[in-house]
């Protein structure tokens, strides 16, 4: 294995580890890494990253599902919207020039950075009270979506029932288009959406998000694969790295407070987003 492959493996490991801890697939790190460090054209970077995102999110989802943190029923309802959006996004992306894709990616990353930072601030102090007091809704609507999981950090069982499922599905369609276009799973959109709009506890939102991320990535990855925008020479080390990182990440995530991690993640995303925007205008910052 050459040095470049080893470096990509290590970067993918970190992307998988951190991504799994916060309900992402790692695409937000891999696409810029492939595009900025290896100089891959955006379409190849996105297509190759989408393959790795499937490995990371499926590995994470396997652990989250076993731990009962994933709400499979809700996931399926949301996937009916995100998957369709992802196909539209994937097709749109194949028509766009490299610079526009890089610019859109940079702007979306800026938003993701803000979203992760603000959600970490909102939830730092009141995390435990929010999670344990998530109300079981009085009426019978979406009763079958009520779920219970054991929270290792709180050392207690948490029961919740998602609210505003219809609105969540609508918002997921838009998230799917953006995610499909950029070869990411859309974790930074789905987690806040489920947590803030649908009133799910953060851990359950992250657990359900990774399952959705894998389906969104599949929808767009097939489009990219069909257009030949996947480079196996980059995909192999990336997939191996994110797979091991994601398996480890889900195990650590259940026992670690996410505040410091979220802030580091937000700063890293901010830095990379600026690099991507500069790249869109032909300026290299390395």
């Amino acid at each position, binding site marked *: 294995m050459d040095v470049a492959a080893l470096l990509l493996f290590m970067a993918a490991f970190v992307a998988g580890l951190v991504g799994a801890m916060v309900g992402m697939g790692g695409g937000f790190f891999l696409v810029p890494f492939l595009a900025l460090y290896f100089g891959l054209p955006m379409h190849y970077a996105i297509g190759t990253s989408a*393959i790795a995102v*499937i*490995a990371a*999110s*499926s*590995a994470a*989802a*396997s*652990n989250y*599902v*076993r731990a*009962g943190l*994933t709400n*499979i*029923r809700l996931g*399926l*309802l949301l*996937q*009916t919207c995100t*998957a*369709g959006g*992802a*196909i539209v996004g*994937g*097709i749109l992306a194949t028509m766009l020039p490299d610079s526009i894709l890089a610019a859109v990616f940079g702007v979306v990353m800026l938003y993701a950075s803000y979203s992760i930072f603000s959600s970490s601030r909102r939830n730092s102090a009141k995390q435990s009270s929010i999670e344990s007091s998530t109300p079981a809704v009085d009426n019978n609507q979406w009763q*079958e979506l009520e779920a219970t999981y054991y929270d290792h950090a709180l050392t207690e069982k948490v029961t919740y029932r998602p609210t505003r499922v219809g609105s969540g599905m609508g918002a997921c369609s838009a998230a799917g288009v953006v995610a499909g276009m950029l070869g990411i799973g859309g974790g930074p959109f789905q987690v806040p959406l489920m947590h803030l709009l649908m009133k799910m506890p953060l851990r359950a939102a992250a657990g359900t998000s990774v*399952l959705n991320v*894998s*389906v969104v*990535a*599949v*929808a*767009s*990855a*097939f*489009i990219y*694969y*069909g257009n*030949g925008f*996947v*480079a*196996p*020479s980059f*995909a*192999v080390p990336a*997939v*191996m790295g994110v*797979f091991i990182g994601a398996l480890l990440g889900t195990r650590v995530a259940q026992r670690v407070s996410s505040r410091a991690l979220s802030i580091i993640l937000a700063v890293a995303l901010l830095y990379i987003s600026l690099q991507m925007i500069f790249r869109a205008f032909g300026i290299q910052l390395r």
Partner: protein
Amino acid sequence: MKHIDNSSASRSVDRSQEEKFLYKWVSRTLLASLMVSLALMLTGSLLLVLAGRPLPSEVLSFGQIFEGLLGLDPAAILNLGILLLLSTPILSIIISLSTFLRHRDWLYVAASATVLFILSIAILIAAT
């Protein structure tokens, strides 16, 4: 009244069994499919390196993979691994669909079938 209580209790037991089965098998399917696809990707890569060939920079079409597999071409094995990886989340939806079908949970039968239908459009686009 007693009949209604029994029926309700039976539905609750049924639902709990459905949940356990669903969560156990979705988790296992995801991991097993991932393992097999990674093994195929690693085997293909290793055979390519041993043969002194670089890892390919382009993917093969579905037809090329099929032809390559007949001749045990390492690049085709590597590509098969990538395709199986792409199919991993689809397998978990098939498990969900079959579980909901068995328990006649129609709303989620419809949701699973819709997601599968949408993904099959993506596969169709990739194949053409």
